């Protein structure tokens, strides 16, 4: 048995860390969302005006809706790329498995910013993609909507989050005992039927985890719209950033953050409930 003193010494640093850098900021954020700003100074008057502004001004709702649409697209495209990739690696890659796995992981080592700038070079009007299309005479002049558009934001985020979606799905697929797949074939199920009746249901927890990653991470992203998105692809985190920065309205920014936090936490709660239904151990 460990002594009480030992236990408190061991647990103090992490508790302190969490308290100081997580709980305290959350509490401050929560408090700010009920305060107001007067003449550029935060005044500690408890009120609901910030939340009222969010509801009455359609801009916020519109941006939030767009953000969720972008996040949902990123989630969908990452799944469409990540699942087949994970499935191929787990079931059919054979000896190339290790190499391909590393190739999927390698982009994670490259800075987010570098990848963002890379997309700028690829998608810009004098960029690689437009140059190539013109070289092939498929287009006569640069295509404008490649860059500074919701399309570019979805593309960049999909590129960044596909490995995050791939990893949990791959782990789930690797954990499916192969005799189950053989048993299904043995009982007369075609490969297609085996996929839908055995492999997909058993990989559901990984699929849900991956989808949640892509959606939640995209929801809070502000760099992709800043780098490759135009004014038409401003996301909710950009609004928060400008409210805390240029607009100097911390209480309103905090109230938006509280809303996003609420959405994220309920989403995580929901997926955890669904995931439990799909685990069989």
């Amino acid at each position: 048995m460990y002594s009480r003193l030992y236990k408190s010494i061991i647990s103090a640093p992490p508790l302190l860390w969490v308290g100081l850098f997580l709980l305290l900021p959350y509490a401050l954020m929560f408090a700010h969302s009920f305060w107001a700003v007067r003449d550029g100074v935060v005044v500690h008057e408890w009120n609901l005006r910030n939340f009222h502004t969010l509801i009455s001004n359609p801009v916020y709702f519109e941006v939030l809706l767009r953000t969720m649409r972008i996040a949902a697209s990123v989630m969908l495209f990452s799944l469409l790329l990540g699942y087949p990739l994970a499935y191929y690696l787990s079931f059919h890659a054979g000896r190339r498995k290790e190499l391909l796995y590393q190739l999927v992981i390698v982009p994670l080592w490259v800075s987010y910013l570098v990848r963002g700038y890379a997309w700028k070079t690829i998608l810009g009007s004098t960029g690689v993609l437009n140059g190539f299309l013109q070289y092939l005479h498929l287009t006569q002049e640069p295509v404008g909507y490649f860059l500074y558009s919701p399309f570019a934001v979805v593309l960049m985020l999909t590129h960044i989050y596909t490995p995050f979606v791939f990893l949990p799905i791959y782990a789930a697929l690797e954990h499916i005992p192969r005799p189950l797949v053989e048993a299904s074939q043995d009982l007369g199920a075609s490969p297609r039927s085996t996929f839908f009746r055995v492999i997909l249901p058993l990989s559901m927890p990984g699929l849900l985890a991956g989808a949640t990653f892509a959606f939640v991470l995209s929801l809070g992203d502000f760099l992709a719209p800043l780098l490759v998105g135009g004014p038409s692809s401003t996301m909710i985190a950009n609004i928060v950033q400008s409210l805390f920065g240029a607009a100097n309205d911390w209480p309103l920014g905090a109230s938006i953050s509280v809303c996003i936090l609420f959405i994220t936490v309920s989403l995580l709660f929901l997926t955890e409930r669904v995931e439990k239904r799909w685990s069989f151990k």
Partner: protein
Amino acid sequence: MSEAAPSSQQAALAAGAPLLKIQGVGKRFGAREVLKSISLDIAAGEFLTLLGESGSGKTTLLRLIAGFEQPTAGELWMGGERLDVLPPHKRRVNTVFQQYALFPHLDVRDNVAYGLRVKNTPKSEISGRVDEALDMVKMTEYAGTRPSKLSGGQQQRVALARALINRPQLLLLDEPLSALDANLRKEMQGELKTLQREVGITFLFVTHDQEEAMALSDRIALLRDGALEQVASPREIYAHPATAYTAQFIGQTNLLRGDVRGGVATCGALRWPSPGPDGSALFSIRPEAILLADGAGTAPNTVRVRGSIRQQIYGGSSELLEVDCGNGQILRVRIPAYGPLSGEHDFLFTAADAILVRDQ
């Protein structure tokens, strides 16, 4: 071979043709030859056991028949139809897997119904056949249970029902009892044998346990290093092992190296008539074929041995003696429970009990 292959399976069976023909089947994994040209016929309704040590290739042979692996040589035929060219889901063969491989996300009823569902059997028919199958393995009351909540024996029954509901022509069983504890294993052996007799389906059973093979099989095919060592009924393979390996693998035995000359075998001081050809020879004598013969007279064609008791192991109904016959010759002798023995005693066996075996 001028006759064409029988056009239908019925014709093939009526002609007394085997259900499954394994013709010169070999399997290589890279440089490793796991199976070396196996040829074996399995009759309809037979309970045949593939017996062998781990690594002997028995599971590989089963997987070739199920279709999970492709043979690198030879052909498989079932009921007059080429089997090895079909994908696993098109073969009328079902498997009971070693760890049962029940679907963890489906309850017992859905596990059993799986084979019928994927073949689009009408719903009304499925429900009746599932009830029947669950009843057959006495698992009706667990229909709504998930596999993870079942004991090993119960999972075993579900795996059997899930395979048999498809009415396969051939059921493959891959060490299905090895995960069960000893008592349950004995019980399931009995049930398995009864079940096979009731459903009349051909069973191809894989095990490394020779006792299990003896208890269950109509015939045993002993595999050694990817080749068939001997195929015979349990009684035949025990009483007349063809090789020293078989004699030692199935039951216990004494191997005596001797010389045959002019119809007489000589082994140290022992001599007995033997029909074998002249030259060096190896004989297998089962421990229970040697009798304690203090004071008995010598009958014709019996061999008398005198030796001292080195060790006595009491086994309830019988006891096993280790008898030192001099010249380093140790004989193992199994006699009915007798009581403590010591010192020198006479033993005898008949010439017919010394089985000439190939030395390999």
